């Protein structure tokens, strides 16, 4: 009995460790994705208060890959500096973000979320499959073998964002207004 318990424990441990490693790789990818979205999306000049104003990336909710994305904080995207900012309070992001990542724990708030965000020019990125379908622009999705993303082009255009064709070519799905 003890032996069985031990085997179960070891199996669980190994499974747990593998899971941890798999999550870590995904987190790296999520951080890379976020960073790269900044590279392949263009904002209108009016989205910035200054000509060389910062590009704000807002991370809303608990962010598992925060350490990974933080390495990009302060790097240059084109001629603008990337500013990575994490918060769990909706109020803190009301003043304005160019990129807004919504974590899974905040997805419950989503139905009202976009109503609460009153500003435009925001590239909203979520991790739910229906995030883009429900008003978000980019949904990062985990398929069976890889991490991919969907793009809601109509929403992007509504936010006056220009999405690079390169990025579009990598998208799993592209939603557009019929």
């Amino acid at each position: 009995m003890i032996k069985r318990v031990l085997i179960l424990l070891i199996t669980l441990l190994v499974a747990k460790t593998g899971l941890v490693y798999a999550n870590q790789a995904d987190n790296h990818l999520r951080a890379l994705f976020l960073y790269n979205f900044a590279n392949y999306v263009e904002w209108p000049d009016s989205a910035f208060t200054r000509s060389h104003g910062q590009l704000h990336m807002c991370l809303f909710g608990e962010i598992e890959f925060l350490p990974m994305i933080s390495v990009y904080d302060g790097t240059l995207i084109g001629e603008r500096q990337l500013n990575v900012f994490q918060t769990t309070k909706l109020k803190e992001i009301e003043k304005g973000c160019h990129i807004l990542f919504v974590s899974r724990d905040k997805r419950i708030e989503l139905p009202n979320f976009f109503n609460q965000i009153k500003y435009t020019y925001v590239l909203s990125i979520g991790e739910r499959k229906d995030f883009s379908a429900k008003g978000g622009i980019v949904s990062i999705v985990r398929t069976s073998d890889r991490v991919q993303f969907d793009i809601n082009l109509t929403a992007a255009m509504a936010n006056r964002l220009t999405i690079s064709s390169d990025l579009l070519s990598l998208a799993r799905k592209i939603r557009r207004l019929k």
Partner: protein
Amino acid sequence: MSIHSKLLWILLITLSLTMLISTALLIFYDYNQSKQSLESELDVLTKVIADRSRAAVSFKDKRAASGNLSSLKAKQAIEQACLFLMNDELFVSYQNQSTDVKDCEKFQFEGNAVTAYTKDSLFFKQYVFLNKKPIALLQLEASLSPIYTRLWRFSSVALFVLLLSALVAYLVALRLQQYITRPLLSLNKTAANVTSLQDYSIRAEKTSNDEVGDLVESFNSMLNTIHSNEIQLREAMTELNEKKDVSDAKALSAEDKHAALKEFFAGVSHDLKQPINAMGLFMEAMKRAPNAVTQLELMDKLEQSLINLNQMFTDLLDKSKFEQGFQKAIKKEVSLSQIFSVIGSEFGVLATDKNIRLLMRGHANTVYSDSLMLERIIRNLVSNAIRYTEKGGVLLGVRKRKGQTWIEVWDSGQGIAKEKLQDIFQAHVQLDNPNHDPAKGFGLGLSIVNKMINNLGHELEVKSEPGKGTLMRVKIKNNLQVNKKKILPMPQLQTSALNDPLSGVVTLLVDDDENVLDATGITVQGWGMDVHKAGGFQQALDMAASLDFKIDLMLVDYDLGNGDTGKNLVKEIRQKAEKQIPAVIISGEAPEFLQTLADEGFNILRKPIKAARLRAMISHSLSAADH
């Protein structure tokens, strides 16, 4: 090699060389172009792929990146494409399925070069940038074999085109080169014809106005020159041949002359026999002479014969006369009496010896003939008459008929048959002498006589009756004034040779040269003449006076010194004696002057005096005086 082949070769070689060079340059150009084209194509392709790969690399989307690279399939030359991350980790790669699979390895480019060539491949590299930072390196490897294949194919086609063009050029040149070679070949053929046929009138045809046309013109003008030279040469040759014919003819006539010369000498030997025979007879008589006086007389005769013989030798062998003898007669006035006198003296003794008579009749005068030739003619005729006469006699006569002077030799010999009359004038024909008795001569005499008569323009007439006798008549045209003053009687021949007709003749001999006086005196004294010598004009007159002008003959030198002449002396003595005393004037003056004396009726004897002539002249003068 013919010019035809040479032209073709020149064209082919030039054309092939030109095409070879241009083709080689074209191939080289094409090879470079292909390389550059591949290079620029790959350059663009690399940049595009690198650009398109940026997002895939950014998102670490190997599937998308791989898909990107697989679009290189469209370019067959690309063998491999490798996309390396900046940590040299291979991100994705592309491998051309048709080539061998090989691992992606980073190629070491030189410096900042983005292209590099190996033997078989071309390498390209291009960084993938994100926010001006390289995030990956794309490396392309393209095979050069398509270029080589193209190069090979191009070269093959070029070679084929080259050969085809050469063939076409050959065929065209074969046709066109005739425009150059045909006139040349025609010229060549003409030249060959001229050489083989030796016909310089052939001309080449000019068919063009180029250098070949000029050549044809030059050739024709050269032929003109040769032709005209050839004609001149032929003319010269014809002339030479004619001259050769003439010289051949001359050589023939020289042979004739030689024959005539031989004949002449044979005749001479014939002539010389007579005096020698006479001399033999005198010598026989001397052996039988009863006393010394008779012997002396005979000795004188013998001497005279010897003098005559000498005279004949001198005359015959004298070169100029010798030539005249058989070549050309020199005609002038000839006194027949002189010739008759010499012949009478010579042949009288022969006739006497044969117991026949030799008579001379008629009136001697002057004829226009050659004295030496005429003397030989008469001598020959008389000689033959005596030779063929055994009884009766021989008559030597002269008379004038029908404007001609006829010299006739009659004999009472055996005569000649009519059918044989023509033969006697041929050399070596002797009638009635089948044994060729040397005493009868060699049968040359009459043939020479005939020739000489023809040469002199005289005529010979022969009449004969076998058994009765023969008449030989020489007809000489009278184109001279006949001396009518006195027709001289013929000298009378003594039938006895032993009594000298000159003995006892009273002779006045005058000469201012003492030696001549003595020598001439001895000579004439030898003939039994009564000689009275005088050394000058006055001395001679005195001498004549002392002889009471009873003088039979005067022998006087013309030039007696002190301006005195023999002519005047003769005239003065004749005047004082009151009669025409016969006289002979001896002179060394010029012949023309002597002729004037002869015309005055004087008997002239030219120096140097020869005994025979002196004697003959003395006899002639005396006999003329008797008439």
